[in-house]
C-alpha cells in the first residue's frame, strides 16, 4: 500500500479505509488466529488491531515496512489478549478440533500421521511463548528472522537462537513420531 493511500486513510477517506482493511484483513486474521488459536477471539483481535492502527496511523513514519508495522501491532494486541486470557481447558479441545488430513493414505497411516501431528502440535504448545511465537511466525507466516526480530523487539540473534532451541525440542518429538 503506497504512501498516497496511507495519507488518504489518515484523512478518514472511506474508500482508502476500505482498501486498507480489505488488503490486510486476511493476513492479520491469520496472524491473530495462529497466536490465539481461537477463531472468534482472533476475529475480535483483528478488529481491535485495525482500530489501533487507525488511531496510530499518523505516527507511522514509513521508514520500516508498513506490513511489519501492522503485524507488530496485531501481535501486541494478541499478546495482550493472551495475558488477559485465563488459563482454561484447552488440551481436550485441541484434540477434538484437530482435523483429519486429506490424502490417499490408508486408515492406519492416517491414525499414525494424526498421532504424529498431534504430538508435534502438543510439543509446539508445550513451548513457552518466547520460543513458540518465532516458530509460528517463521513456519506458518514465512517471515524472515529480521522481520520477526522487529515484531518481537528482540535482536535477530535472539530470534535465531530461540528458533534453534525450539527446533531441537520439536525435532525430538517429530523424529520419535516418525520412527
Amino acid at each position, binding site marked *: 500500500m503506497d504512501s498516497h493511500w496511507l495519507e488518504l486513510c489518515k484523512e478518514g477517506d472511506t474508500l482508502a479505509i476500505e482498501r486498507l482493511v480489505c488488503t490486510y484483513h486476511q493476513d492479520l486474521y491469520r496472524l491473530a488466529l495462529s497466536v490465539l488459536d481461537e477463531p472468534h477471539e482472533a476475529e475480535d483481535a483483528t478488529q481491535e488491531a485495525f*482500530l489501533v492502527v487507525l488511531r496510530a496511523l499518523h505516527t507511522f513514519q514509513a521508514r520500516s515496512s508498513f506490513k511489519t508495522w501492522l503485524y507488530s501491532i496485531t501481535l501486541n494486541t494478541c499478546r495482550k489478549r493472551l495475558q488477559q486470557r485465563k488459563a482454561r481447558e484447552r488440551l481436550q479441545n485441541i484434540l477434538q478440533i484437530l482435523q483429519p488430513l486429506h490424502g490417499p493414505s490408508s486408515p492406519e497411516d492416517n491414525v499414525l500421521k494424526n498421532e504424529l501431528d498431534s504430538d508435534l502440535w502438543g510439543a509446539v504448545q508445550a513451548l513457552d511463548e518466547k520460543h513458540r511465537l518465532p516458530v509460528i511466525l*517463521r513456519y506458518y507466516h514465512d517471515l524472515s528472522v529480521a522481520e520477526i526480530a522487529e515484531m518481537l523487539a528482540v535482536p535477530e540473534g535472539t530470534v535465531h537462537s530461540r528458533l534453534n532451541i525450539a527446533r531441537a525440542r520439536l525435532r525430538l518429538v517429530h523424529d520419535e513420531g516418525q520412527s
Partner: protein
Amino acid sequence: MTDISHAQARQYLLAVADNLLIEAEQAALRTHLAQCAECRAYAGELDALKSGLQAVFSSRWDHQSPSARQLVSSAQAQSKRISMHYRFTTRARVLAEVVIVIALVIALNYIIARRPQVSARPTQVPTSVPTHALQPTPVSTSLLLATSTPVITATTTSLRYENTTRLIALALNTSGNPDIYVMHIDGSGLTNISSDPSIDRNPLWSPDGKRLAFESNRSGNFDIYVMNVDGSGLMNLSKDPAEDSLSSWSPDSRQIIFKSNLGGKAAWYAARTDAVGSVIKLSDADATLAQAIWSPNGQEIAIMENKSDVLILRADGTNLRVIQNKTSPGLTHDYGCQILGWLPDGQNIYTECESSDDGGPIWTIYQASTQAGLTHNISTILQLVYPPVVQDFWMSKDASLGYELRDDGDPVSLYHSISFSLYRFENGKSVLSGKEIVDCAGKGYFRFSNESNTSGQYLSATQCDSANITELWAPNLKDDAGQVVGELNTGLPPLQPGSSMMRTGSTIVEWSQDDQFVLVCTSTESLAQIYVIARDDLNFSRGILKPVFTSQDLLLDYSQPVIQPVDVPPQPKP
C-alpha cells in the same frame, strides 16, 4: 573451497533454515553435503520438521477468514471519529497554549511588581535544575520526585531499603505511548522523566548511576539518547536515519556501545556520552548475531559475531584482532558461542560454545588470549556432555565459573517435578554448591526465570501447576533441596487438570549490577508487579512478599525495569 566439519555443516543447516547463510557458506555446505550422508540425513530431518510444522499449522489455521465487510464499516466510522477528534484536539491545544502564555505574562507582571528592591548585586540566572531534583535522597525521609499517575498504585514493604538512595528506572505506557520513569526502590515517587509522544524504551543506567541511556523513535527512527536522572541534559548520541539498539555503557560511563542497521547491515558503533556526533564504527562485520563486552578497565571491547568469531579491539576502534573463529584448533560450535566474560587480568576471556554429536548436545568452555600476537591461543577449560542439560552458565567477579544442570536431561519434559544442581568450577574441578528440588506432588510446574548474580548467588522463580503462588527458590546444600525464600501472589491461577500446558503470565528475576538487590517482575492477565528484595533478605524465608509497585501498564516484554547500580550521594547545593 575447503571442506567444512560436520559440526559446521549442522550449524550452517540451521542458518539455512532461517535464510541467514551467506553465499560462500552455502557453497561450502553444498560441497560438504555432496560427500556426507550423515549431514544429508540431518538436513532431511530439518526439512521434515519444517514440512510437519507447516502441515500441522495449515490444518489448524487455514480456514476461510471471516468477511471483512462489517470490519470495513466499523473502521470507516472509527476513522471519522479519529479524524474529528484529531482536529478538535489540535484546536484545543492551540487554544490552551494561548491561555498559558497569557497566564504566564500576567504572573510575571505580578512577580515583578511585588519584587523588593534590596540589592544592587547583579542577579544570576540559574543554568540548571535544582540539585535536589537531580539526586536521590534516602527513601525513608523524603520523595525525590513528583507525584505518580493515578492509574498506578505503590505500596510500602517491610523489606530493608532504609539504607539506600537508589532508584528504579522503567518504561511505562500510561498515556498511550511508552515513556521512561524513575521511582524510589520502595515504589514511591514515580515520575515521568522522558515525556514525549513517541516511544521511549529500554532504560539503562550508567555504571556510576548518574545518567540513563534509552532508545527513542522521537526523530522518526530509534536513536540512542542519554539524560540525567531528572530528565535534564537530554542528548541524541546516535542521530542517524537507521534503527539503533542500545547495548552497554563503558565501565567509566564515558562511552556507549550500540548496534545500528545503518546502510542496511547491522554493525557495532561506539559513542561518547559527553558530546553529540562522536560516533565511531567498531566493526564492519554483520553484527546480527553478536554481543559486545567491555574489558574490566574499559579500554578494549570483545565482540562475538558470526556465531563463533571473537574480535578484540580498542574502544577507539583501533588494534583490531581476531582471537577465535571457525578455524581455531579444537573449537566445536554447531549451535554457536557466547562470551561469558573477561578475566580480571584483561588478558583473557572465557567463551562458551554448544555443539552436538549423535548422543546430544555438548557444552564447552574455552579460554582465549586477547593479546595481540597470540591469536587463536585457545584452550578447553570445561566440557559437559548431555545428559544432563546445562540450564545456564555464569562467570563470577573472581573469574570462577558456575553452571546449573537440570538433572533429568530431557529437554522436552518441561512440566514435571525435577531437581536442579548448581556447580562451581574451581581449580579444574566441579564442586556441587547447591540443589533445588521442586516438588509439585507430580502435578507439574513451570520455571519462569533463573538468574545468578556475579557472586554466583542463584535465584529462580517457579510455580507448581496446582498452586496459585509463585515461589522464589535459592538453591543450597544445607537441606540438600534448596529453600523457598519468598512467595509472590501474582494472581496467576492454577492450571486445571487436562488443560493446556501454556502459562499466560511471566516472572522475571533480575539482579542489580552490584548484586545488592534483586528485582522481580511478574506479569499476569492485566496486572504487572515489581518486587525488590535486598540480598541479605535471601538468607531465610520471608513468606508472602509485598510488591513495591503494581500497574496495568508496565512494559515487561521488551523493556525491563532496572535498579540504579550504586547509591549516588546527594550533591551539595552550589
